């Protein structure tokens, strides 16, 4: 083996978590001075693989070689020292600290003063300025707190941080998700510079055009497995999609038989009371309709639906429900008006992990189960939960199993069951299939399609283009807090939606 033509080899990596085999015999080989794209659907195992490389997870099987030499990282520090740095998907700054301290965190420069060493602020400022200058981001003040920066500036800061390690391999996990077109161009310039200097970039992105523009090679993963590695110039968008999905696109979504009827919800000129949120949003939702909401991260879609649900304050505008002007000041009032909201962060604001499937199912509907005596009607709790479990085919050992022990898809089904027990007319679903494996996605789609066919009205936020196109009757696209268009789900294509989603960028 000895000298390798690869700067990085990950051979036959496997990693399991309780109940899931997240990586199954995955191989990734990166040549020096190239941009290597890593692609796959959500849950395909891209981020897990990168965490195994970066010392956050330790793989169960397989070996990692750096320039031909086997390496093993127990901590991220070791990975950083070996010349691997990573820009994580979820940025992790220390908000109430200056930019430059964030940049040099863990290796803040010091100067010796006898036996003591003190932080060398002058050098830190100089070093920061040098890096910012080389990356053309001098508009960021090194001394301001990170919380004062916009999301895209924070992203650039992370890139600067990764570069500052003088890494041989830089992992970028969805680096453009919150960048505008100009900023993406800026990032690409940085990437090309780095590549010219012999740095290898592992580039994770869902945006196929971006991948075809910037990458030299593409490795595609599916369901925790390695599908193949290809030269970018031999690939087309359709080839990538079919390799990622692994089956015909037409079978990804269930047939729908819903017929949209009369308008049930009318939102007029709604403006958030929060600064930098949505403005002048108007739309209609019909009975039995699935209305998709598309847009990029930061388009304020979540803020919009949470405001409609009474979770966030509204400055002006009106909501008409069943022809009556309505004031929804709190989630309680929204639930009473037959609305339901399945939140975006399943773990943070959805499930109560330590409670059972039953307790999670009846949570939003508890008053309904209180008997005159004041005690809960446990028999009915159990029977209703069992009914739901069967109806939505939740795979669980029993209704008393703690929900944390279920897979993401089944947890999501339990949350559907929770809201269905409140018998809502309008269901708002915020990224309903995020972090759910491909098989379970189809089941969630079937549930949504059935609900619509039974006359429920559905608002579905999704960042996955195929999901929006495959499931929605109409699609409302937002950009920077404003509605940029409402289009028909059957006749629209990805490009139209993308154009609307980036209209103000």
């Amino acid at each position: 083996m000895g000298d390798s033509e690869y700067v990085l080899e990950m051979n036959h990596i496997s990693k399991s978590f309780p109940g899931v085999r997240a990586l199954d015999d995955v191989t990734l080989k990166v040549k020096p001075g190239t941009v290597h794209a890593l692609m796959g659907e959500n849950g395909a195992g891209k981020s897990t693989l990168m965490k195994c490389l970066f010392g956050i997870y330790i793989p169960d099987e397989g070996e990692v070689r750096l320039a031909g030499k086997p390496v093993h990282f127990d901590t991220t520090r070791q990975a950083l020292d070996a010349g691997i740095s990573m820009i994580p998907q979820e940025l992790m700054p220390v908000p109430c600290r200056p930019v430059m301290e964030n940049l040099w965190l863990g290796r803040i420069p010091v100067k010796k003063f006898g036996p003591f060493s003190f932080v060398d602020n002058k050098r830190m400022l100089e070093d920061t300025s040098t890096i910012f200058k080389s990356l053309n981001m001098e508009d960021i003040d090194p001394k301001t707190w990170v919380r004062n920066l916009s999301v895209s500036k924070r992203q650039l800061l992370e890139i600067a941080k990764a570069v500052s390690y003088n890494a041989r391999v830089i992992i970028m996990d969805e680096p453009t998700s919150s960048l505008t077109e100009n900023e993406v161009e800026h990032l690409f310039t940085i990437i090309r510079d780095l590549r010219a200097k012999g740095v290898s970039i592992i580039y994770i992105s869902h945006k196929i055009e971006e991948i075809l523009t910037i990458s030299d090679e593409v490795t595609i993963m599916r369901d925790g497995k390695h599908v193949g590695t290809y030269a970018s110039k031999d690939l087309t968008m359709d080839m990538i999609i079919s390799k990622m999905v692994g089956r015909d696109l037409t079978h990804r979504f269930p047939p729908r038989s819903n017929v949209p009827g009369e308008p049930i919800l009318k939102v007029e000129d709604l403006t958030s009371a929060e600064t930098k949120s949505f403005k002048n949003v108007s739309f209609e939702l019909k009975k039995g309709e699935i209305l998709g909401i598309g847009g990029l991260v930061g388009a304020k879609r979540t803020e919009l639906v949470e405001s409609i649900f009474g979770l966030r304050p509204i400055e002006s505008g009106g909501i008409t429900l069943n022809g009556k002007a309505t004031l929804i000041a709190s989630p309680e009032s929204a639930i009473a008006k037959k609305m339901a909201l399945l939140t975006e962060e399943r773990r943070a604001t959805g499930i109560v992990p330590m409670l059972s499937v039953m307790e999670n199912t009846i949570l939003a509907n508890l008053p309904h189960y209180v008997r005159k005596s004041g005690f809960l009607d446990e028999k009915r709790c159990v029977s209703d939960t069992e009914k739901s479990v069967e109806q939505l085919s939740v795979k669980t050992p029993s209704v008393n199993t703690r929900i944390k022990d279920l897979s993401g898809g089944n947890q999501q089904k339990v949350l559907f069951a929770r809201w269905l027990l409140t018998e809502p007319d309008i269901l708002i679903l915020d990224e309903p299939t995020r972090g759910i494996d491909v098989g379970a996605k189809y089941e969630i789609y079937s549930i949504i399609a059935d609900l619509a066919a039974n006359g429920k009205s559905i608002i579905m936020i999704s960042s996955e283009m195929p999901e929006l196109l495959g499931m929605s009757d109409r699609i409302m696209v937002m950009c920077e807090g404003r509605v940029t268009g409402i289009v028909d789900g059957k006749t629209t294509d990805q490009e139209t939606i993308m154009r609307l989603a980036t209209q103000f960028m």
Partner: protein
Amino acid sequence: MAKKTAQSDTLTSLQTHDRKLKEFGINNAIYIVFFVLMLAITIKEPSFLAWQNIRNILSMSATRIIIAMGIGGILLTGGTDLSAGRQVGLAAVISSSLLQYQEYARRMYPQMADLPLWLPILIAIAACTLLGLLNGMIIAYLKVPPFIATLGTQVATYGICSIYFDRPPYGAQPIGGLRKDLTTLGSGFLGWDGTYSIPYIVLIAFAIAALVWMLHNKTRFGKNIYAIGGNAEAAKVSGVPVQKTLLIVYSLAGALYGLAGTLEAARTGGATNNYGNGYELDAIAACVVGGVSTSGGIGTVPGMIIGVLIFSIISYGLTFINMNPYWQQIIKGAIIVSAVALDIRKYLSKR
């Protein structure tokens, strides 16, 4: 149209003015509370501003400042320390038991020769440093939440202290008869007469505060403390030695409690196993009122000192104007809650 714009312009500038005033209030809430309190007491009793009173307030605050320096560092990492008060008590008992004068009838160690002053102090500090290290290890390695970990050591430390305290030949009884050199440390002062002078303990407390300020602001260790409290995951991923830093923070806090306990015994001229009871809550309250976030990452040494002083002024100043001590408790409670409610606006407003 133009008129409307002009109108809305004045409106905006008015609003900006308003907002600036509000922002100033929010950003400096702690200092405003401090000065209003001073002002109110002074108006009621102008003689309050005499150096004598200020000196008394400062010497009351001295040991509390040292404790706050220890616990403040822990709060900055996002932790807490309920064992602080009991550690103070242990240090007070250890150092005073080893520093009783020869002629005193009920010496804990009747046969023992005089030790040099620094040795018992060092022993007390070492004992508390070890307890702090234990706290740190339980938290950093066993991953026990700091509240629970230090609740455990709080209870156990009281046990250790009481066993040591309740020993032959005289059993459990207050330790008195402290040597002159120790009590001088606690109640002596620097200056030409009783009126214009600064107590030694005040000098010690401010020297400690200056060192801790340097540690927090001028060293890599300090930056790591803030990073861990601000975002532990980010710190870890960036290669900050989180566990090691926690060990040092808790040990250092222990050392400071050890010193504070010794000085508390020196100041009051004695010690019992109940010394220091509840001091941790006073110190946490002072830090929090001084702008330290209990979720970590936010807070400054000057803020902690102001926090301690506010509480000393309340006790001393309100007693000075003859306010009912029970009312003082109510005011203390109200200040804790309102100061934090105001202070937290700083971080809530910009979302």
